[in-house]
């Protein structure tokens, strides 16, 4: 039964039919997995709750058999895990679009810088030669902290940084120099 369904899909493309191109030939109802198996098992009496078979996506009450207390707790757990991700926007001066990274993936500045360099294909001022940096062709990672100030990445301990970083900006060399002078 299931095989024949798959074959149907393959043949659809080459099928000759009447009708405008782009229109589907009617009511081939999309059958879900459990429906297919209902029919493939011979001698199955139709279950009392018919609607459960024709729309198996409708969740049955109390199924799977997990106590609602546990279900609710796990919603919290799932949400919490999601909140222990830390996505921040990363912009690069001159680039038309922004990116997003998860700060919790990195355990220190080295890893973060490496990831940024790979993502944006640049070399940060710290790792490239001084001349290029002075020319302003390099980028320096900066971040906006909880107070709304723009800071140079790398000054505070990593833990404090991820606790306060709201967004990242890869600042062009010349502008960053000014920040560096202030720091």
């Amino acid at each position, binding site marked *: 039964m*299931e095989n024949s369904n798959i074959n149907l899909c393959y043949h659809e493309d080459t099928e000759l039919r009447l009708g405008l191109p782009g229109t589907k030939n009617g009511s081939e109802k999309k059958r879900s*997995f*459990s429906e297919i*198996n*209902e029919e493939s*098992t011979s*001698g*199955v*009496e*139709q*279950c*009392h*709750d018919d609607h*459960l078979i024709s729309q*198996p*996506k409708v*969740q*049955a*009450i*109390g*199924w*799977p*058999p*997990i*106590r*609602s*207390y*546990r*279900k609710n*707790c*796990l919603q*919290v*757990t*799932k949400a*919490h*895990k999601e909140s*222990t991700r830390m996505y921040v926007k990363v912009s690069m001066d001159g680039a038309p679009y922004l990116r997003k990274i998860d700060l919790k993936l990195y355990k220190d500045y080295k890893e973060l810088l490496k990831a940024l360099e790979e993502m944006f294909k640049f070399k940060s001022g710290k790792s490239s030669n001084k001349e290029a940096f002075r020319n302003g062709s390099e980028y320096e990672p900066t971040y906006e902290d909880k107070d709304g100030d723009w800071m140079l990445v790398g000054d505070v*301990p990593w*833990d*404090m940084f991820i*606790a306060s970083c709201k967004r990242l900006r890869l600042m062009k060399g010349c502008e960053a120099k000014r920040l560096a002078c202030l720091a």
Partner: protein
Amino acid sequence: MRENTRLDGPTIGPAPVYTPPCPDQVLENVLENVLHFLTCRKDRNSASLVCKSWYRAEALTRSDLFIGNCYAVGPARATERFRRVKSVVMKGKPRFADFGLIPPNWGAFPTPWISAFAQAYPWLQKIHLKRMTVTDYDLQHISLSFPSLNDLTLVCCEAFGTSGLSFLASNCRQLRVLDLFEDEVNDDEVDWICSFPETENNLESLSFECIDFPINFNALEKLLARSPNLKRLRVNRFVTIDQLYRLMVRAPQLTHLGTGSFTPSEIWIPAHQDLDFGAAFAACKSLVCLSGFREIAPVFLPSIYPVCANLTSLNFSYANLNAEELSSVICHCHNLQTFWVLDTVGDEGLRAVASTCKDLQELRVFPIDAREDSEGFVSEVGLLAISEGCKKLRSILYFCQRMTNSAVIAMSKNCPELLVFRLCIMGRHRPDHITNEPMDEGFGAIVMNCKKLTRLAVSGLLTDKAFEYIGQYGKLVRTLSVAFAGDSDMALKYVLEGCPNLLKLEVRDSPFGDSVLRSSLPHLYNMRFLWMSACRLTLSACRQFAKEMPHLVVEVFTNGMEEVNDKDEFVDTLYMYRSLEGPRTDAPEYVKIL
């Protein structure tokens, strides 16, 4: 009737004047003394059937009263027969109530029981209630009626709150154990922790992981200071890891610890680095059981490494861990016997368990996403790995989305000690995902090869064949759970006719009809209950059945609490149980007792 003084029990009646006992009395005295040593319920029931004299002697010496269905017998009858009870364990609603299949206010009220016990057993020491509707009034009543109460345990109960707990805390002066497991507790905003007396207490166990709101932590810390005997402490998720630290340093003698949220109060700040959690755990040299981890920050997992080798029980079933995080812990847990976990660890995580935990007896794998069409993270691969590594397995509960017969068959052969096999393939009617066959052969192998099996829960695509196997081989099965399974009435007939020890049968959403009732006739008095919901039973058949079986209570109700109607083709829910009392008087309007 003159009672003899017991060495351990209370004296009833006036001080006796000595007259030499007659021979029958001597025999009864001897019998009573011997029966004291008989603790197993089943043996006691057998002993009581020998003759009247044995019945009386057994009744006088039974100190642990177990009532599996609070409606099977009444308080008057129970207290009339058993006069010397010191501990009571009672269960109320059927298990499917946990999954929302019983509308509210259905019953299971302990109130009349507490009143009867207050009269008959004022010396009562232990009360365990499971799946009962316990009110604050009930808890107050308990706290005032039993001055010797030292153990109160409530499992899966509801309808009480902090005000009820407050009565217990302040009035039960002998309390050693106050354990709340998976109850629904209301927040009446009463500080029950503060209600414990200011003096030193006898507390040995305090468990409140299920309380879903904050408690007074400072009061808890002070309570610990006056609880020198405390061995088991299980706190709720509102206790943070830094607070847990403060508790642990006060109570290094703990054997059982529920760790609360296992996450810091705020975002991790450097000051927390000063707290040596590892040392706190290392100091708890007697720790054998860990649970909690409700909002675990995995960075703290290494703190528990020092105690892993001694752990016999570990509950990670609320901890969202991946395989790597789990492995880092489990590799140290060589002595683990009980392990609960979330499926987020995947088959790989289970492999890690299998390779270390050679003594594992009980495993439960819960789904983080408990929906039918969720992505399952464990499969037959994990089950197979467990079966190959944990040969001593006795009990398994496994939620998954994909399974094969061959893995289940392998488990049946690798784990012959299995007593409990509960496999829940969450998607309904799912076959073996490799062969596309029904799961009949897998479950068949389980009943065939696991000769000690007493509890079975089936799932996936199943034909009548699976039930034929169960009826043929499942001779020791006492509890059977069936959902979305079977083709015809023959399935249940196989089971009812073939399983002599069947005590509890719970069935939902399966195509079984009226003829099942007829074939179950001779067996039903041996069963505690039969539950059938969303099957094909007609009201008239149920009615007829109720007429023929006087000692059965036949309850019928609808999901929506509407009146049960003759015009409906089938009955929504049938709940039928043996009872000496006849129809209960506390049923709500929507329950029709036939």
